[in-house]
């Protein structure tokens, strides 16, 4: 919370400084806007292993198979037009039943053609410069994560286990992948049929001070067997709460998107590279592709991402002798994830009332060559949403995960109740304004 408060204060101070600076030049045209969104949902999973407290093998954690009702997100967007072409912007998100408050972004943006005639947008294209805590421009989902921009409540595996939009495993720290840094955004029309958009950012990047990047640890509740294990849940930004980078090596992120002006289609390529460890010796490199085809009555979306993680082989960051074979790092490894999602609106009974059907298939493999990991899995999700009033929807979705190579699951995982198939029902109400 201290870091959260510091970030909010930083955002306010930066905004105030720019306001004062522009006001002193006689050019302050104040304009302030607020909007936002939120959701409440009930989820009832089954097939997950039960867990014990990591530090106390006699204390069970909350059973992950128990149904929960929660306010998952409630976000407010604040935009302040400091002056012609200068915008200060912050998003404050209340998550986890409003017990956590995260500034998803807090930045100042300069729209270069708006503030100077030197850069002519008609000939050179649009150009903006953003600095502060920014949304990481990687793949499509992260910049479109609010559920009013999506058809399902659950996040695709590309955003859950690789690009760390929503963290998995025990270290849930809010939604959205944002980081401190600066971003240039340039776009240009390509004739009448398309335009191109390029975002390039330098950010602190994914980080972990431990010997492995993916250091999540859980304790399985397997009766007599209660080992501490690394579930290898994928990329988690352990430095999310840090106020500074853990090394002197900034991460570079770029996203190049082509947008058709004839049909509502955009296709993009994303790239990320940066060191994650304190010495700056080990890199994470990611490449991804996204596609969105968003027609009025149907949509088709997909993402594919691969990540290469450098790490030292033979390190056991957990130190549980009984599970050393599972926990010891195996050196550099690759991960990958992809999803495809289609939706169709069969019933539309006014301009803003409709029923939509949704189908999504995901696949992920976070396996760093361990014999078994529960995050080598596929998932099918079937859902529907009903926009029953303007700006509010009721959603239902059912998902079934299938764990790969379940015959190789350790005895403790099975004894803890871990199943080959995990299912979940979700009912949600979402709203935006």
């Amino acid at each position, binding site marked *: 919370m201290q870091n959260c408060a510091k970030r909010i204060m930083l955002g306010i101070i930066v905004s105030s400084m720019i306001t004062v600076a522009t006001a002193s030049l006689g050019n302050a045209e104040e304009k302030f806007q607020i909007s936002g969104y939120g959701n409440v949902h009930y989820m009832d999973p089954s097939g997950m292993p039960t867990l014990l407290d990591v530090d106390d093998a006699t204390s069970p954690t909350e059973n992950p198979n128990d149904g929960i009702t929660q306010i998952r997100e409630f976000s407010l967007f604040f935009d302040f037009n400091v002056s012609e072409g200068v915008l200060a912007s912050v998003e404050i998100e209340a998550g986890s039943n409003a017990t956590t408050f995260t500034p998803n972004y807090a930045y100042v943006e300069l729209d*270069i053609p708006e503030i100077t005639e030197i850069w002519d947008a008609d000939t050179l294209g649009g150009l903006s410069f953003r600095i502060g805590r920014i949304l990481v421009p990687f793949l499509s989902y992260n910049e479109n994560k609010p559920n009013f921009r999506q058809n399902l409540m659950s996040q695709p595996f590309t955003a859950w286990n690789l690009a760390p939009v929503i963290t998995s495993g025990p270290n849930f720290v809010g939604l959205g992948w944002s980081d401190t840094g600066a971003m240039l955004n340039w776009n240009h029309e390509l004739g009448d049929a398309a335009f191109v958009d390029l975002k390039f950012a330098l950010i602190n990047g994914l980080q972990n001070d431990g010997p492995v990047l993916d250091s999540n640890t859980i304790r399985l509740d397997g009766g007599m067997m209660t080992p501490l294990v690394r579930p290898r849940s994928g990329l988690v930004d352990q430095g999310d709460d840090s106020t500074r980078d853990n090394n002197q090596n900034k991460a570079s992120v770029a996203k190049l998107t082509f947008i058709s002006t004839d049909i509502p289609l955009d296709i993009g390529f994303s790239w990320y590279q940066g060191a994650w460890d304190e010495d700056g010796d080990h890199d994470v490199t990611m490449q991804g592709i996204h596609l969105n085809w968003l027609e009025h009555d149907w949509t088709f979306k997909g993402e594919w991402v691969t990540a290469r993680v450098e790490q030292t082989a033979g390190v056991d960051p957990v130190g549980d002798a009984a599970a050393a074979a599972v926990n010891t790092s195996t050196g550099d490894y690759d991960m990958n994830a992809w999803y495809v999602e289609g939706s169709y609106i069969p019933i539309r009974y006014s301009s803003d009332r409709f029923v939509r059907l949704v189908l999504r298939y995901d696949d992920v493999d976070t396996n760093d060559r361990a014999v078994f990991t529960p995050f080598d899995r596929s998932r099918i999700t079937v859902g529907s949403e009903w926009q029953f009033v303007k700006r509010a929807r009721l959603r239902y979705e059912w998902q079934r995960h299938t764990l790969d190579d379940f015959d190789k699951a350790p005895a403790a995982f099975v004894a803890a109740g871990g199943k080959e198939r995990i299912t979940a029902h979700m009912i949600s109400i979402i709203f935006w304004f």
Partner: protein
Amino acid sequence: MMRFSKIRPLLIKTTVFLVILSFSTPAVWGATDVYLIYSGKNKADKKLFKKAFPKDIKIKTYNADLLAVADYSGIQKAISKFDKAHVIVILNDRPMEMLKGTRLKKTLIIVQSLKKEVASENLRLYILKEGTDLSALGEGIRKKDVASINDLADEKEIRASDVLLIDEKTLEMQQAVSQLIKMKFGW
């Protein structure tokens, strides 16, 4: 692998350049009069309209296709930008679809689109070709036929209309809109 120590001087220089650039050309500062919103498909129309508008009017243009790659608060940011102008002109259907569900504070002129998805807290005026089927706009639509610039002389009469139907044989669409801008309609 690119080290930050190598990039840092470039980043600092870029930041300083952009900040200086931001404050170095005060001549162009000042409120935008008209925001012209178009899509890449209608780039030619945008050029025609921009060319036809009075030269003493400060015009900004915005390609609404950009909203497809903006982040999730991008529409709000775009709206706050548009609302700094006196009048917002939207060309054709695509920008109306991209801005669906929004409400502008300023006067809105919609050209060659029958869509109703974008509202205005001030005035909303449709400019359409003569003979356009207006049933999509609903019942009770107040229309005015316009054959020449002279038909646009009375602002009160225009304010009492929802739709101006332009006779393109005698008056070009962009000339009609330009005349409205010239007379500062809805400012």
